């Protein structure tokens, strides 16, 4: 079946612009996660959605970052007024409702801020 799909795969934009990154999780997965991976760094947790519960936003680095998940499926991560330090690969993952399950990752969006 289809895996996690992310778009765009690459995004280049100017400093100060807003960007939207999209994630299509695996059908039926209730948990959805956004991570950020900078060069030479590990995956940094950003935000987590579980079913209809309020999202866990504890990893968002600033109020310029926000995310929503519509209809319990597709999610959009928005970065407003982008800064050069926002340049990174943004990864989305989903997992099933059963606990202790692996996370399934998309191939990420490589964001470059000029």
């Amino acid at each position, binding site marked *: 079946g289809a895996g996690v799909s992310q778009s765009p795969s690459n995004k280049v934009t100017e400093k100060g612009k807003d960007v939207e990154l999209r994630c299509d999780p695996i059908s039926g997965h209730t948990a959805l996660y956004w991570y950020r991976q900078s060069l030479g760094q590990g995956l940094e947790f950003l935000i987590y959605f579980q079913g209809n519960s309020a999202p866990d936003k504890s*990893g968002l680095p600033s109020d310029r970052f926000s995310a929503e998940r519509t209809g319990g499926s597709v999610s959009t991560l928005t970065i407003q007024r982008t800064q050069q330090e926002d340049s990174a690969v943004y990864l989305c993952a989903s*997992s099933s409702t059963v*606990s*202790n399950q692996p996370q399934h990752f998309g191939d990420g969006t490589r964001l470059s801020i000029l």
Partner: protein
Amino acid sequence: SQKIEQNSEALNIQEGKTATLTCNYTNYSPAYLQWYRQDPGRGPVFLLLIRENEKEKRKERLKVTFDTTLKQSLFHITASQPADSATYLCALDVYSGNTPLVFGKGTRLSVIA
């Protein structure tokens, strides 16, 4: 402070040998630990999960151990092949259930023919 360390940034081994990667953590009490493989330009791919009450888990040429006393997991690839070359990430579930994982920075493994 809480920390996850993977033994080295890079590890080179000869084809056919066993690769051993280490994941150490401090100030966590994870319910389980996962290992992922990441190839350049791709997202991580799940390999193995081991629970806190399990000592060892195997899958084909892969073996993972989990020592909650030492706060350490070892990841072994036996009879390594050049196709095993990738970055391997360990990840802890510190809350149990569907919660964000805490990842190490990874070890880049190169298997030389």
